[in-house]
Structures are given as structure tokens and as C-alpha cells.
């Protein structure tokens, strides 16, 4: 596709379960970002990939959160033992490099019940 694709668009899970959120960036974009956004707030940084490596994972809130990008394209955000406080919209963005536009997906709305 032409844009950043995130799947699923909505995910409802029970507290304690494991979830995976997928991001398919624009082809050729080396930079990939994950953010978490709560209602009425700005995107909260989670992790940034440059190619296959996590250049900055300082935003991951705790060790229940993990993200991979094994081939430098698709990325998966993994959340273990989900908690109700993890409920939010998880946004993914990609860009070609420094000072260039970051293109966002429409997000995955995660609800932990």
C-alpha cells in the first residue's frame, strides 16, 4: 500500500493476556516510530528504529513492552501481561530520514478489559 498500515485497527483483550500490534511502514522508509496516545493527549514516544535496530527504546514503560523490526521493514509491538492502563491508541510512523515528514498510520486502538 501507499501509506503506513497498522493492524488490527481495534483490539480488545482481557487483562493479563499477550497482544501483538503490527506496523507496515512505507516501503523504503528506514526510520520507524511507535507512539502511544491517550484521549486528548499528544503522542507519547515508545521506541524508534533506524533500520533493524532500536536506536532509542527509552520510552518503553516497562519490560512488558517489547518491539522488533527484524528485516528493517515491518515492526511488531508486543505487550505481555496486559493491564487496563495499557489501553490507548498505539500509533506507528515512518520516515526516510532526518528532517523529513513522518507518515502516520491510523493507529491500533487497544482496550484491556
Amino acid at each position, binding site marked *: 500500500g501507499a501509506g503506513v498500515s497498522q493492524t488490527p485497527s481495534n483490539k480488545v483483550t482481557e487483562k493479563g493476556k499477550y497482544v501483538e500490534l503490527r506496523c507496515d511502514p512505507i516501503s523504503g522508509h528506514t526510520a520507524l516510530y511507535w507512539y502511544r496516545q491517550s484521549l486528548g493527549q*499528544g*503522542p507519547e514516544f515508545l521506541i524508534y528504529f533506524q533500520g533493524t535496530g532500536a536506536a532509542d527504546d527509552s520510552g518503553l514503560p516497562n519490560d512488558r513492552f517489547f518491539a522488533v523490526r527484524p528485516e528493517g521493514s515491518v515492526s511488531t509491538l508486543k505487550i505481555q501481561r496486559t493491564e487496563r492502563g495499557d489501553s490507548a491508541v498505539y500509533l506507528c510512523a515512518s520516515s526516510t530520514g532526518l528532517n523529513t515528514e513522518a507518515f502516520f498510520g*491510523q493507529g491500533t486502538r487497544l482496550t484491556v478489559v
Partner: protein
Amino acid sequence: TQLLEQSPQFLSIQEGENLTVYCNSSSVFSSLQWYRQEPGEGPVLLVTVVTGGEVKKLKRLTFQFGDARKDSSLHITAAQPGDTGLYLCAGEYNNNDMRFGAGTRLTVKP
């Protein structure tokens, strides 16, 4: 603590009024970007400013980057209801890492 502080957090004005929103930080950025976000959508880029003191205009929107590349402002002239949305600033570091402010939620009433 937000790296980027945006003010005001909320702004409600009448159609035709002018407004300015601010984005401030203690960090120096390689560039600063302004995005607008609609409900249920991801943010969409409005402008990127790179040079200290730079001013960019996009129709009724004027963006300025501070001389020290730590702050920015967005001025809207003759606001319209279609300008309603969440305005986000994002600072980019030299390594392409990017952080967002909490946003200014603008409502323009007809």
C-alpha cells in the same frame, strides 16, 4: 515531564479571529514539525522548520522557529471552523529521534 511544552492546552475562538499557539523546550532540535490531528486519524504534517529564525507560511498559517531552535509558534489568521483540531509540535533530534508535545486543542466556532 514533557520535553516539549505546548500552550495553551485548549483554545476556543470565534470564526474570523486570529490566534497563536506556542511550543517550547529546553532542548535544541535539528528541526521542528507541526502536525494536525483529526479524531480517529494519525497526525498529518503541516510544516517542517529547520533553520533558526525561519518563518514559513501556509495560506493562513504562519510558522516560526526560534533563533536558538528550541521553540516555535503557529499563528492562524482569520480562523475558520475547518481549522478545528489538535495541533501538535514535534522536535527532531540529530539522530532522527522525534518527540511530541501534548498538543493544543483548537475549536473554531461558526
